[in-house]
């Protein structure tokens, strides 16, 4: 078999509690430092122990976006893993397993004779070197690197950077255990493995997940207050910010419930801090009344909704884009809002920073809509551009501008709809923020004239914000392609990978990503449809929500639709075979 350099997929499977996630993260870091690109993705049931957990790391020479189903190295920590994943194995692929714990027979391999078995006494080696049995993963990592003929010193450095704070002993223990796995494979399996790693020089890149990107975007955006109630897949925004809180002097508050979380954030924002809250669809349902409160009191608010399949508890640890229409219209009443759906970690970072700024400057609620796939998947990513959105506070009135006044007309009509606000404590700025419809000072006012004025004023803020939004649609690939994939959010990632594969298959395709769902980019989408030859709607929900939104705003319908709603993201193959079947 012809050797393949810098292109392979690695998968680890075991029961929950086996600590496999960390191992995949280390491998992803390794290949990224080696100048390659990785994506990793995990599947796990809603369990802390047991169940079947898998993590996949796919590696490529070129920038890669989402992984396909083939697999070259499988680390099987239990029998289940072999049975479930043997079918995906490439010919000559390897299964690394612990012969003291697992016997692999022909039946388990489904008769496959073209797979290399690589027994490594994972637990024994971990214990021998002075580690705990959970460190079998580190042995497996060493074994993996040996199979791939990859240099160990790069791994040593990663251990140093990752565990340095815990002391030299921890670093050395990891290095030793990893080397034990490496040496074992070197000695016992000198047979050639057709896949290998050859590091190449490059600018530093990160390995990062969508939730961390949002947390970092918030920090860059001047966030000082975040409140949330844990809910998969949004929880790690809270835990990441909580961990970073002492470094950045911010508050990450675990609230008693999501209703408290949203009202905490509204209160903090009202008092002048840049604030956000985050949850998944179930928690967002509870935040909905608060969303309207932010709108009518014109208090800046940023909410993250990391979607998972519903309704109700749904599939807690899986992915879906089923909340699009929900967030667009959530809460009673008719009021403006911004909805942004980032399609990769870089967009998640930039748009989260921007969300805080937009909310503050235009006194609007901004919803950041992601899903489990983006929230918890990891990608090799160029370092974020910290200056992408220059930060500047705005939307406030300086004390000298209203000095001597008894009451401040916080809700007085203005041409832009934005009435600069004082913060409580500021002399002379007294006003009432009122969830009842109100007059310019905030006093309840039910007259028709006032109602019309206030609604128009609030709506106008969205128009005022428009020039400060980035392009709301993104065209990936060449204009004039045979096929246009119309998509949003994390599905953009799957489409970008499909684009790479379609190119090899000789089909020209491009992607219309709708980044800002609200305010809906009607003109841009209409234009894009006019020049598209054939449009295919691609999203992970069962009713084609984006398709109906597009139809509502533009009157255009996609020629075809490809929907997936089994809780899994699109495999690029799904998209490629759909597109090629049309040709």
């Amino acid at each position: 078999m012809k050797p393949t350099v810098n292109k392979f997929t690695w998968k680890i499977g075991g029961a929950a509690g086996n600590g496999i996630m960390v191992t995949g993260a280390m491998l992803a870091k390794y290949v990224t430092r080696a100048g390659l690109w990785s994506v990793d993705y995990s599947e796990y049931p809603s369990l802390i122990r047991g169940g079947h957990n898998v993590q996949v790391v796919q590696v490529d020479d070129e920038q890669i976006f989402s992984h396909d189903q083939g697999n070259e190295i499988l680390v099987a920590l239990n029998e289940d893993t072999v049975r479930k994943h043997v079918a995906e194995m490439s010919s000559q692929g390897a299964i690394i397993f612990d012969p003291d714990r697992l016997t692999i027979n022909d039946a388990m391999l489904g008769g496959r004779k073209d797979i290399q078995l690589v027994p490594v006494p994972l637990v024994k080696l971990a214990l021998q070197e002075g580690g705990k049995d959970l460190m079998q993963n580190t042995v497996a990592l060493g074994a993996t690197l040996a199979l791939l003929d990859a240099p160990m010193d790069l791994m040593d450095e990663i251990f140093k950077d990752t565990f340095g704070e815990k002391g030299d002993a921890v670093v050395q223990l990891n290095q030793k255990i990893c080397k034990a796995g490496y040496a074992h494979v070197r000695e016992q399996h000198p047979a050639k493995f057709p896949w290998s790693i050859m590091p190449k020089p490059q600018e530093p890149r990160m390995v990062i997940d969508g939730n961390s990107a949002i947390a970092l975007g918030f920090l860059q955006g001047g966030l000082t207050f975040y409140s949330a109630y844990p809910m998969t897949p949004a929880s790690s925004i809270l835990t990441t910010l909580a961990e970073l809180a002492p470094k950045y002097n911010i508050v990450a508050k675990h609230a008693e419930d999501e209703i408290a979380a949203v009202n905490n954030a509204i209160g903090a924002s009202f008092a002048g801090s840049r604030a956000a809250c985050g949850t998944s669809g179930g928690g967002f349902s509870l935040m909905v009344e608060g969303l309207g409160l932010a709108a009518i009191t014109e208090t800046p608010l940023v909410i993250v909704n990391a979607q998972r399949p519903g309704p109700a508890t749904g599939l807690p640890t899986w992915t879906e884009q089923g909340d699009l229409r929900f967030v667009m219209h959530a809460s009673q009443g008719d009021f403006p809002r911004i909805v942004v759906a980032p399609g990769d970690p870089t967009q998640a970072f930039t748009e989260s920073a921007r969300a805080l700024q937009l909310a503050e400057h235009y006194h609007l609620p901004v919803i950041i809509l992601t899903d489990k796939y983006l929230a918890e998947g990891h990608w090799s990513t160029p370092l974020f551009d910290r200056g992408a959105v220059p930060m500047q506070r705005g939307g406030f009135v300086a004390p000298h501008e209203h000095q001597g006044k008894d009451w401040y007309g916080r809700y007085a009509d203005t041409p832009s709809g934005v009435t600069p606000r004082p913060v409580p404590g500021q002399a002379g700025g007294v006003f009432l923020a009122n969830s009842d419809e109100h007059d310019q000072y905030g006093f309840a006012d039910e007259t028709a004239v006032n109602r019309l004025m206030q609604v128009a004023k609030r709506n106008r803020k969205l128009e005022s914000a428009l020039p400060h939004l980035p392009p709301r649609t993104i065209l990936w690939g060449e204009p004039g392609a045979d096929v246009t994939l119309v998509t949003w959010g994390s599905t953009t990632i799957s489409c970008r990978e499909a684009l790479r594969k379609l190119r090899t298959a000789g089909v020209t395709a491009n992607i219309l990503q709708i980044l800002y769902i609200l305010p809906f980019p009607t003109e841009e989408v209409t234009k894009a449809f006019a020049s598209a030859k054939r449009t295919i709607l691609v999203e992970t929900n069962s009713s084609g929500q984006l398709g109906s939104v597009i139809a509502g705003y533009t009157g255009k319908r996609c020629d075809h639709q490809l929907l997936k709603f089994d809780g899994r993201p699109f495999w690029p193959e799904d998209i490629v075979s759909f597109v090629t079947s049309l040709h």
Partner: protein
Amino acid sequence: MTTPLKNTDFNTTHFPTWCPGCGDFGIWTALKNALAALEMKPSNVLIVYGIGCSGNMSSFIKSYGFHGLHGRALPAAIGAKLANKNLKVIVVGGDGDGYGEGGNHFIHALRGNVDITYIVHDNQVYGLTKGQMAPTTELGQPTSSTPEGTVDQALNPVALAIAAGGSFVSQGFAGDVGQLTQLIVDAVKHPGFSHVNVLQPCVTFNHHNTFSWFFKRVYKVESVQHDFSNKYEAFARALEWGDKIPTGLLYREIRPTWVDRVHELDGEPLATRRIDTIDISKTLQSFT
């Protein structure tokens, strides 16, 4: 020299729309008296209101105000206080609002001990929505939503507050403005979460717990040498209801507030921290 503040400095151009004779007038007067006594200018205090007849006070008091959602005044107030720890924050709500709709927030506010003051208009009925059962409605009392009498045991807010870890738990009466004023002053001065449950006759929808009913029953705990630092004694008093109803400071304990415990809140308030000097490059580096 500045002239001392007067009760009337906190009036707005709107005169209360409460029913004539409503206990809310007494609470309104006591709160304004307390603000004046505390020398808190209208621009130095934020009052967060729930939704109800009680929350309608938002239109009748001059200060920074936030008239939020039914049941959600506490979390909004806590957010505001954490964003600007130098701000004085007072919360005004009803019993349906705070013990029913927002009951969860009440319990956790008591635990968290954020330094704000919570004044509850306890009229044992829903006023604004016309006389339905409240969590504090006495067992068996007919209301518009329970015409045959309530079947749920009444909630005891002060006993609950002590049990949930309140650091300042008190009970006032809308018919004793002098005592209530002092309670509010003490509550605002208390370093931590202070709870003032106010027995408030609703003259329109509660014909059982009337002013005269209360006048026959309330007594001041100071008059019986109550030891408000003794949790067991406080709890026993808090449980009293019926022939004798205690008013005054029931329980107090000085313990660190939320802000004291969270070191990220040391120094400059969150709201005024600079955002143009933030440097996340080290954190980015940790992802490489």
